[in-house]
């Protein structure tokens, strides 16, 4: 590893078992600085587990993870100041409003109150959440939860974003805004890692991709290289293996 220009996210041998099931099997992964990195895989492939371990939310059985060269587990505080994380399906401070959540997190991160206030206003505007000023997060819809989560991710202006299923349940208009924000963020030198099962989205946004299946990375590299002559979707199905069911199986359907 080159210390002068360390990778945005460096994963070395991360491993996790739950009971007898190996969820993530000694995975190595390197996300170069300034890249838009897509992690794809079917349900239960271990994407969430891998990303959780990489950002310090889940203790690995083995292996290390570093953000911009700083180890997430031994020097968490420093690593996490560079890091914006959107986990999938975790609770927020549910009984606060969107603005209160942002203000609260700004204070937790020790940011200047005036700065937090300005950024919160802008983030709520961009995420189209200003109309829900009086709604508590607990009563947000799934899409709104995602958006407030994304806002908290961006609040402290991190250099690396790790987003677990960021576009799930987000409406097309907000999704478009978000895509623009993320693309601009990368063009300015930031790095994004996102997981998804929407291949078209990954193909459209990401420059680099890794395919996970059954806890291991089965393919990685620039999007063009991984998909080859076909689409990413077809490559994906070939890599992780298509289901055994055939359309002919449900001959009675629709008759």
């Amino acid at each position, binding site marked *: 590893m080159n210390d002068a220009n360390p990778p945005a996210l460096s994963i070395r041998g991360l491993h996790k078992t*739950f*009971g*007898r*099931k190996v*969820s993530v099997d000694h995975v190595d992964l390197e996300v170069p600085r300034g890249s838009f990195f897509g992690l794809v895989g079917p*349900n*239960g492939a271990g994407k*969430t*587990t891998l990303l959780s371990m990489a*950002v*310090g*939310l*889940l*203790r690995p059985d083995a292996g290390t993870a570093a953000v911009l060269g700083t180890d997430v587990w031994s020097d*968490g*505080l420093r690593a*996490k100041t560079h*890091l914006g*994380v959107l*986990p*999938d*399906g*975790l*609770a*927020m*401070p*549910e*009984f*606060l*409003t969107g*603005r*209160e959540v942002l*203000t*609260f*997190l700004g*204070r*937790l*991160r*020790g940011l200047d*109150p005036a700065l937090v*206030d300005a950024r*919160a*206003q802008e983030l709520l505007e961009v995420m189209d959440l200003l109309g829900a*000023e*009086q*709604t*508590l997060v*607990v*009563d947000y819809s799934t899409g709104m*939860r995602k958006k407030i989560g994304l806002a*908290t991710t961006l609040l402290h202006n991190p250099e690396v974003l790790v987003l677990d299923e960021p576009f799930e349940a987000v409406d097309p208009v907000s999704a478009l805004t978000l895509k623009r924000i993320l693309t601009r963020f990368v063009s300015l030198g930031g790095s994004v890692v996102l997981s998804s099962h929407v291949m078209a989205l990954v193909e459209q946004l990401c420059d680099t991709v890794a395919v996970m299946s059954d806890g291991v990375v089965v393919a990685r590299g620039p999007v063009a290289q991984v998909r080859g002559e076909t689409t990413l979707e077809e490559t994906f199905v070939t890599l992780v293996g298509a289901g055994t069911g055939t359309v002919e199986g449900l001959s009675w359907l629709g008759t």
Partner: protein
Amino acid sequence: MVGDLIGLKLALTRNSITGSRAVWAWTGASVGVVLAAGAVVLAGWPLRPASLVPDLLAIAYLTWLIGWVVGPVMSPAPPLRPAHLAMLPIPRHRLALGLLVAGFVGLATAVTALLFTSLIVYAARLGVVPALLAVPLAALQVSLLVLVSRVAHVAFGRLARARAGAALNGIVLAVVLVLSQSGWMLLVGLLSSGVLEEGFPDGFSSALRWVPSGWALAAVEAAAAGAWATVVLVVAAMLALAAVLLVLWGTSLGEARGARAVVRGSVARATPRRAPFDRPVGAIVGKELRTWWRDPARSAALSAPLAWGVLTAVLPLTFGAVELLPWAGTLIAIMAASWLANMYSFDGTGIWLTLQTSTERVDVRARQSAYLLVYGPIALLVTIAFTAASGLGWAWPWALAAVTAAVGGGAGLVAYSSAFMPAPGPDVHERAENPAEGTEEIGSSFLVFFAALVPPLPGLGVVYLGTLRDSMALQWAGVLVGILVGALLAWGLGRLAAARLQRTAPELLLLMRSGRPASSTDTGDEELELTTWETTLMTVSWTLGILAVIPQGLLTMLFKLTGNDDVRVWFLAMYLPEPWGWLTSIGMVLLGAYLIWIASRVLKRAAARRTPQASAPERERTR
């Protein structure tokens, strides 16, 4: 369809009631059978005056009604939920009827049916016609209770969505606790009021018959008196009530099932742009206080200890004893600690933000501060008000020494047990049917309750010494000791908790996420595999042990010390002449301690038997 639903319900019940829950279910059923059988015997007993028999029966019926109403509220959701069948194309009224009939199949209904045979027994004493009438009426009355229970379950769940309703739930829970722990005080009041010699006052007797639980009894009595118009009226009322309840319940089945209604979901005005606290600790305290104000589950956590402490202290007034009043605030503080023994479960997976911002230490301290800010003033104010109201001048240093230590100690204990014995709770937005629904794991609450009794002891000891030496200064020094002990415990235990959370926050998150501990080594509270025999042994020795130590042991000592030698009720030691009374009290404490030791040994043995592989979680929860 009804047959299928019954089969489904039995299967679900079999799968959900296992281990210790099965023991509880069967214990409860056995106690219920004994009580119901007692009512049947009572119905045939020639008591003097004669009016006492139906009045006592009516009280029993009313008690059962209350049990049917609050029982389902306190227990986890019923096994057969309407939501499971929501997408089936069955007309709503048929589904309601089918679910109702399936709801009848169960231990509780069987016990209730047994109870209402007492109505038939009593009616038989009144004549042949009332007896014949009593048979269908008893069946109708049982159906009414079940229906009331169903509707109450829905209503309470809906109430809990609003803060006030959740607070009410907490109070109901507290009332049940108080009645089960000190219901005997009502008995003492009853005995000393002379009711058993003269019968109940007329107003009370007729009130008992106005409550729906007494309607069948009223009809039977009217039949015996030949007042047929009344009989028709009462029976019609029962049928009408049943119909109304059935319709109400049927309507509730048709709602968007499983979806959480937005009721609490707003704040009065837009959020101010500036928060009053700039530093992390202030930010968390601010968030906590807002959450205390807005979260229904926390409203219940606030109202329940308050109601419990106040009621426990007030109940002895039924026989004119004011000695418990000064302790109300202390009792609130102790129950509050017990209620908050798992404070992180209120937030579910929300702990991830603490992890991401590396604010574990600050978080523990801030939550402690919020705890003190919420419960401290309440406990102190109640202590001051109730001590003043009791008129017991000597009680001031005692009450203040106890309450300060209990509040401070509580702040330490909740942090400690939350960090060292965490149990998973549902995420707030997943508490679909009852937003006040919390964790089912109550082991640590139980432990904290008893641990919270300890901090006041040093201060009280000094006050006691001051009383012996007749030194006012020494007595008030006891208050100082109480404050010191409280502060020390809050600081010290909080420090341990903060260090622990800093080490194990990822494991806490995993626990909340998966509902299971990460591995057998880093948390000590996972479920142990106990055989039925061990569970029974543990439950029995634990229950009897506590009964022996506290009411039969320590409480009788307290009675003797305070000169209340005339309180007897079920206290063995109070019936015996001295020195046997004292020896019995001490013996009870020792016996209880031995029983609790047996219970803990069962647990230890089970823990030693456990292998790490056997208890690993099956799988990660994937979404």
